Every structure is written in structure tokens, then in C-alpha cells.
């Protein structure tokens, strides 16, 4: 009887059972429950579900097809800042734009021969790797507005979606 039990203990079924539900099923169940609750809290309140980049407008900073994490809580203590790469929602969070904030509320933003001017001064943009000839007339932002643009300035300005995002559309900051 004892011999049979030992054989069972080290048989394939025993190993499968151990891998799937562990040696102590009750403890495994509690672990699974804790993991589910933790994942729910993490992706409901702290992070957005992992986002996949589609389109070249943030190239080369964000490569097409790459997967990233976005923090929902980054702006709980302070408002969005220039240089932040942020997620901008459409009707919801299923599809979002990823853009960089270049203009903060109250500032005036313009493009002159590819150079970005904020309040009339050239903004150094080390993340822009390709020169452009973009021109855009000055745009003064309202109290709750941010000017956002992608890092890929090699694109024609007609093909690049840029503009003013209101604060309520910014759902999070790119973490990784």
C-alpha cells in the first residue's frame, strides 16, 4: 500500500497536479485570488493595460509594434509637464494617441522652418532626430490645454496628427 502511494506521488499525474494546482490547492486558490485582485487594482487604478504602438508619428522614440506601460497616477500630484509622452484618449481608452507635450497652458506654440518655438523662444528637442521644414502659425493655449506633437518630424505635417489636447483627454504618462 505504501509502495503504491510512493509510486503515485512521483507519477506523471502527481507532477501535473502539482504544476497546475500546487501541493496545497487551498493555498494556490488564495494565491490566484490575490493575483487577480492585484492585477485588477493595478490595471484599473494604477496602469493602463499594456499599449501597442501603431503608426510612425512617435518614431524613433517609440517603435511601431512596441509595447509600453502607461501610468494613470502620474498626474495625481502635479499637472502634465513639457517633455512628457502622454496617452490621449478618443471616445474611450481602446485606442489612444501617444504624443509628446511641447506646450503648457497659457503658452504660445509655433513651428518656424521646422523649429519649435514656445513663447517665441526655440525649444531644444533632443528627442527629434530628423529635421523638418514644418511651419505653423502661433497658437496660444487656454488654461486647460496642452499642445502635443509626435517626435517624428520627418513626416509631412499633413500626415502628422498634432494639436491641442484638453487636460481631460490626457489619461496617463508613458512609463516604459
Amino acid at each position, binding site marked *: 500500500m505504501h509502495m503504491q502511494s510512493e509510486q503515485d506521488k512521483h507519477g506523471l499525474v502527481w507532477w501535473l497536479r502539482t504544476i497546475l494546482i500546487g501541493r496545497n490547492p487551498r493555498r494556490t486558490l488564495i494565491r490566484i485570488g490575490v493575483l487577480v485582485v492585484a492585477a485588477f487594482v493595478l490595471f484599473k487604478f494604477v496602469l493602463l493595460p499594456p499599449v501597442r504602438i501603431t*503608426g510612425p508619428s512617435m518614431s524613433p522614440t517609440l517603435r511601431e509594434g512596441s509595447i509600453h506601460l502607461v501610468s494613470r497616477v502620474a498626474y495625481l500630484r502635479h499637472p502634465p509637464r513639457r517633455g512628457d509622452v502622454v496617452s490621449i484618449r*478618443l471616445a474611450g481608452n481602446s485606442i489612444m494617441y501617444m504624443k509628446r507635450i511641447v506646450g503648457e497652458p497659457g503658452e504660445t506654440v509655433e513651428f518656424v522652418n521646422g523649429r519649435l518655438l514656445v513663447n517665441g523662444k526655440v525649444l531644444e528637442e533632443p528627442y527629434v532626430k530628423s529635421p523638418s521644414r514644418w511651419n505653423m502659425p502661433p497658437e496660444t493655449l487656454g488654461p486647460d490645454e496642452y499642445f*502635443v506633437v509626435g517626435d517624428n518630424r520627418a513626416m509631412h505635417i499633413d500626415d502628422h496628427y498634432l494639436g491641442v489636447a484638453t487636460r481631460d483627454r490626457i489619461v496617463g504618462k508613458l512609463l516604459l
Partner: protein
Amino acid sequence: MKIVVRLVLLLVLVGLGYWLYTFFFPGPERVIRQRLAKLAQAASIRPDQGLLSRGAAIQELAGYFDSEIEITVNWRGGSQHSLAGRDEIIETAKLAHARFKHLKIEFLDLNVTLAPDKQSAIVHLTAKVTSSDQSDFQVQELKFHLKKANGDWLIFRIETIRTLSHLLVDGALVARA
């Protein structure tokens, strides 16, 4: 222990009853969501669709709209497209079927706002369009205006919403509204 089991069973039964009730007697919001999902399906073009099936889909598509339908779409890049009436929708659908072998339309993140009398509604959503001639998909925020007529929810106006309030017209940026 028995009481706990009975309570759990009771909760499960109540949940099941509620689900069955909403399944067989859906509220207006659910009806609108289902209708827009069917609209997206009817507006999509499958590569294996035959001529008859395409014709039926176009006719079905027209049935989702009020006879006074107005559609104004400002696409990214500044181009504006307007349609008025079911006939124009049918013509546009025919053109789309002639041009695209495959066109997938999806409506995502539907936010339904019902009027207090529940006879009209506004739906704010994201339209995702994937076509055979573009590797990337297109997205556009849309606002649908619907009204209830003879028991059916009909769309009488569709307009675009600019996510980033800036508009490019013929390569030149113009001031936003």
C-alpha cells in the same frame, strides 16, 4: 453553513434572473449598442462577399438611417465629406464596394446618453476603419444622433469630433474654432 450556501444560491438565481430579463427585454441603451454593432457589420465589406450579398448589405445599411439623415465628416488632414439623405448613403456605399475588397468598420468605446423622454439619444464613439489598401487603420471620433421612430432607433445625424482641436486644410494649419 447551510444558510451561506442558500444565500449564495439565491444571489446566483437573482443574478441569472436579472441577466435573463435584460437579455429578453433589453433597455434602450443596450438596443442602441446592438444596433450600432449591426450597422458596423453592415457597413463593412468582406472579401468573400458575393454580388447579391453586397447588394443586400447596402439595402440593410440604408435601413439604419432616417430619411433626413445628415452626415458631416471632417477627416484628419482637413478634408470634409458631407452626405444627406438615404440615397446618398446608398450611392456612397456602392462606391465603397466598388473601391474596396475589404473594409472593416468597428465602433469602440460607445458612450450612450439617452434623452430624459428616452425617445432620442446621442452616442459618442471611436470608429476604427481598416481597409485593404492601407496597412494602418484609421480612427475617428464620431457623434451619432438617434431618434426612436416606430419602435426603431434611427440615426438622423452623424458628426465628427476633433480629438486634437487643430485642423490642417490643404497643408496649411488654420485656427481652431
